[in-house]
């Protein structure tokens, strides 16, 4: 047991990778147990993530040094206090992202096992799925900039390969190719900025770079490239164009996980801003840049979603729009980072609202994509102009979709309302206009989900969908898991905020604790 507990950060990566590499062999010789193996591996890796998060919340920041002999520290004395090995540093924020990835990835596996039953190429599909999970886990737990790039690329490549599955006529490949090209350029720009930082500080460790950081032109170039590339990964306007293309053609379960994958990019953005650059950069300017990107994402995302006719494309534009809320909340917190009074008054709340929205968005957008995927699974129709009257035959799917739609529109008592309320009220103290824009966007979100709900589930039974049945039980099970969290987080927002969101916000706001956790007494 202590073997597992001592090496949790390594198992986070090792378990999904080991599972993924065994799948081709199992699929070749024992195809009957493949599905059970997938569920088992996904469950184990989710458990590893939850255990890691639990350890972080109870015992503080975890620092794990890869390849070191037992008992040696992160910054060995003979290297002069520079950490040179690959180091995983999981603090409150990383643990928070791990939790959201763990919940969604396990729920999606249950869904996929049922929805992919009759598809071909399953071994590679699930191997890529577990690789994507490993990529997300790695991105949110690494403390090393180059390692972050590697996991970012694993994330991009496996994500693009998964997007290209199943849709006929090459359209899925088109979406995947756009996503891949755009994110490859972004990844190379991230690597370029990593090189810029390495050239100055001779280290790749985030904590060490943060402790040595000064404001030079090269560092600003690196920061700008980090912001744009990671905003592109997260799908924020004006770098969002490939996101709806990829999300709208991917298999539905994959899209639910891709939302989490894009949020890992958001994690990188916030980590770079707060932890690496937090002490030196002019936070007001950069904070306003983040806020403007957030506002643009919200407004353009939701206005593009309203006239969409493809049901998944509509949801994909809402993913862009909701990313704006997170950027808005965290951007406000970054803009007032240098002002302790303002941070205490509303910056902390804005931060918590933005971060709380990350996990909420992962849950309800996952639920919505799974519910819409269930509709597509049974009908094979994407166009909102052709769907209708499915509420008669797919009652459970309708209920789950309704819960997800109310949550994303910010209707109490679901979880979206709690985080949006925190964002509105704290941003109102910063700048009332921003808060009003956020509320208008929320109203438009509700409007567009009324459109979807009405045109898919309401209305009389249509003759062409006479024989549509409810989806298999495993798909329902995947949706149930997410629904439980959506309702639970909505009914107990104080508990969630106090136990997991506040530690995450504190981990970001308190730059010194991250550095001390890695470098120890060498600072």
């Amino acid at each position, binding site marked *: 047991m202590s*073997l597992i507990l001592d*090496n949790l950060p*390594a198992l986070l990566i*090792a378990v999904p*990778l*080991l599972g993924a*590499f*065994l*799948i*081709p*062999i199992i699929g*070749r010789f024992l195809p009957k147990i493949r599905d059970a193996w997938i569920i088992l591996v996904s469950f184990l890796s989710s458990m590893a993530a939850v255990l890691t998060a639990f350890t972080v919340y109870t015992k503080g920041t975890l620092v*794990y*040094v*890869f*390849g*070191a*002999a*037992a008992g040696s520290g992160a910054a060995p004395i003979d290297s002069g206090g520079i950490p040179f090995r690959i180091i995983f540093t999981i603090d409150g924020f990383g643990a928070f992202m791990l939790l959201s990835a763990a919940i969604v990835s396990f729920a999606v596996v249950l869904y996929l096992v049922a929805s992919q039953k009759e598809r071909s190429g399953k071994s590679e599909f699930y191997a890529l799925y577990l690789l994507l999970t490993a990529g997300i886990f790695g991105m949110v737990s690494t403390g090393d900039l180059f390692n972050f790039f590697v996991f970012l690329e694993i994330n991009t490549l496996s994500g693009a390969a998964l997007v290209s599955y199943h849709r006929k006529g090459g359209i899925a490949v088109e979406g995947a190719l756009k996503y891949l090209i755009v994110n490859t350029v972004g990844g190379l720009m991230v690597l370029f900025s990593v090189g810029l930082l390495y050239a100055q500080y001779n280290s790749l460790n985030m904590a060490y770079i943060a402790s040595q950081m000064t404001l030079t032109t090269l560092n600003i170039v690196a920061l700008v490239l980090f912001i744009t590339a990671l905003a592109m990964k997260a799908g924020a306007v004006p770098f969002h164009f490939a996101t709806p293309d990829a999300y709208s053609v991917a298999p539905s379960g994959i899209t639910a996980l891709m939302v989490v994958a894009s949020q890992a990019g958001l994690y990188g953005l916030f980590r770079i801003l707060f932890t690496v650059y937090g002490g030196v950069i002019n936070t007001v300017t950069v904070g306003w840049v983040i806020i403007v990107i957030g506002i643009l994402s919200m407004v353009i995302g939701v206005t593009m979603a309203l006239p969409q006719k493809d049901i998944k494309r509509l949801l994909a534009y809402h993913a862009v729009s909701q990313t704006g809320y997170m950027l808005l909340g965290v951007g406000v917190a970054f803009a007032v980072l240098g002002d302790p009074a303002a941070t205490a008054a509303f910056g902390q709340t804005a931060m918590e609202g933005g971060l709380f929205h990350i996990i909420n968005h992962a849950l309800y957008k996952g639920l919505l994509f799974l519910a819409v995927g269930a509709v597509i699974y049974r009908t094979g129709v994407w166009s909102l102009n052709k769907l209708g009257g499915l509420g008669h035959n797919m009652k459970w799917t309708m209920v789950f979709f309704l819960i997800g739609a109310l949550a994303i529109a910010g209707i109490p008592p679901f979880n979206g309302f709690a985080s949006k309320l925190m964002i509105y009220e704290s941003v109102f103290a910063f700048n009332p206009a921003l808060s009003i824009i956020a509320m208008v966007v929320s109203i438009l979100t509700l409007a567009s989900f009324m459109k979807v709900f009405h045109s898919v589930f309401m209305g009389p039974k249509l003759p062409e969908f006479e024989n549509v049945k409810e989806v298999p039980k495993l798909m329902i099970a995947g949706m149930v898991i997410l629904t439980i969290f959506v309702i639970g987080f909505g009914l107990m927002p104080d508990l969630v905020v106090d136990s997991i969101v506040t530690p995450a916000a504190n981990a970001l706001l308190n730059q010194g604790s991250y550095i001390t956790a890695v470098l120890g007494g060498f600072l």
Partner: protein
Amino acid sequence: MTSGLIVRTAGRLIVPLIFIFGFYLVAHGHLTPGGGFQGGAVIATGVALILICYYYKDSIEKFSPAKNFKLIEASGLLLYICTALSALVLGSSFLFNWLNASGGLFGHAVTYGINAGDLFTAGVIPVLNFAIGIEVFGALSVVLLYMFAGLRETTRAEDDAPAPVLLKKGKKGDRK
């Protein structure tokens, strides 16, 4: 795709040498420039040469179908991750070099200063190099096989047919 008699004969000669050179690069990865990825890529170029010389269809019939290469790839990856995990069992951290200077396989002590290098040093690094070599060889071969599967090939009979006499008639750039 056309590949004539010369390519086929030369390929027959060169392919074994390419494989040996790739194996050398993998095995000496911890001493000289090279390593798992480079060696594996070199071996995969041998596979590419086989495909060019002997046609895709003949190759997968007589050589090996793509699904076997998938197994090779998966086994290389498994060897890597099991080596990395084995350090956990011994009480160290992930990827710890527990074989180094232990006296066992690849466990000779390293001599410092200018020397020719000893193959049996560096602990788990050569093991990982072999794992990566196997993986890259399998993966690139799968990529090549699948890409060749999408090409339109000529048959051997077409390639061996005497070259058509070039009639200067109606060709582009021809005088009329």
